[in-house]
């Protein structure tokens, strides 16, 4: 999916997002189903953002929608810092060459084959060496 950063023609951010999950239109509820339990806890700007996403959701391919559904739940439970960091890195990688993006993909799938205890050791090593202490334990890495 191409990341288009051009300003959207229509934005839905001016309306007030329903505070209660039950007040969401049915079609939005269907798309954002994994968020139902968290919905009340989200800040209003995040609610707006998710509704924005739900608007664009039909444009994604079936495969993209599936991935999206699988990952939503974990994503919304991350700390704000974790999400910010992930977005930054994602943007940087999108700017990189296709070879590098491909490299990230292959390296990640290789990393996933590592035994769990080794991954845990790596995470602990990273947490120790991070200056200022990165927030989050990286458990979101199990996100598929």
């Amino acid at each position, binding site marked *: 999916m191409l990341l288009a950063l051009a300003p959207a023609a229509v934005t839905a951010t001016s309306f007030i997002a329903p505070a209660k999950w039950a007040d969401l239109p049915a079609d939005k509820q269907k798309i954002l189903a994994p968020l139902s339990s968290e919905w009340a806890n989200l800040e209003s700007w995040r609610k707006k953002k998710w509704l924005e996403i739900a608007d664009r959701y039909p444009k994604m391919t079936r495969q993209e929608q599936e991935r999206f559904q699988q990952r939503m739940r974990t994503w919304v439970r991350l700390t704000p810092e974790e999400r910010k*960091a992930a977005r930054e*890195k994602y943007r940087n990688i999108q700017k*990189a*060459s296709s070879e590098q993006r491909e490299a990230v993909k292959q390296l990640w799938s290789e990393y996933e084959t590592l035994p769990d205890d080794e991954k845990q050791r790596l995470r602990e090593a990273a947490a120790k060496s991070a200056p200022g202490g990165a927030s989050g334990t990286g458990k979101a890495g199990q996100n598929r």
Partner: protein
Amino acid sequence: MIQKDFALASASELADFLASVERKAFKQALFAVRNEDDALDIVQDAMFKLSDKYRAKPVTELPLLFQRILQNTIRDHYRRQKVRSAWTTLLSAFSSDDEDADPLESLPTASVSGLGNPQASLEQDQLIAIIERELNRLPPRQREAFLLRYWQDMDIAETAAAMGCSEGSVKTHCSRATHTLAAALKARGVELS
């Protein structure tokens, strides 16, 4: 005790061999990578690798073995340079910050010619410098073939094995190298005796 004596004898044999080849090996590496520190590293690396294999080899095989190890080590150096720069680019793209990564690849340093031999005349110094410059101007494979075959006294088959190419290629590289060098020297009005 006998074992110890034997070990010491072979250690000094290795030491003698290395002492006889180390300077030339350094120059060889320097022509290839154009950086003194890298060349020293390469020679050290090659010496270690030779010492690892030393026990199994008769001493007459050492010169050729060492040359092959040296060439392989130089090749590894090139490969690492390439890998290093690919990693830098990837990791910097992965960074959370927008800063440029520190460029790691060292560009070939300009001058290769060594400092003058205090005993040599100025003329000799200049001649050395000229030869070095013209050698450095050659395409890498031609230079490699020339130095291995003529300077390191390897025959065509040995050179081909060390370079990983055919014997025909070795002959072509050598012939082109010599022609280019001869023409270059002639153009400068230099005659060799």
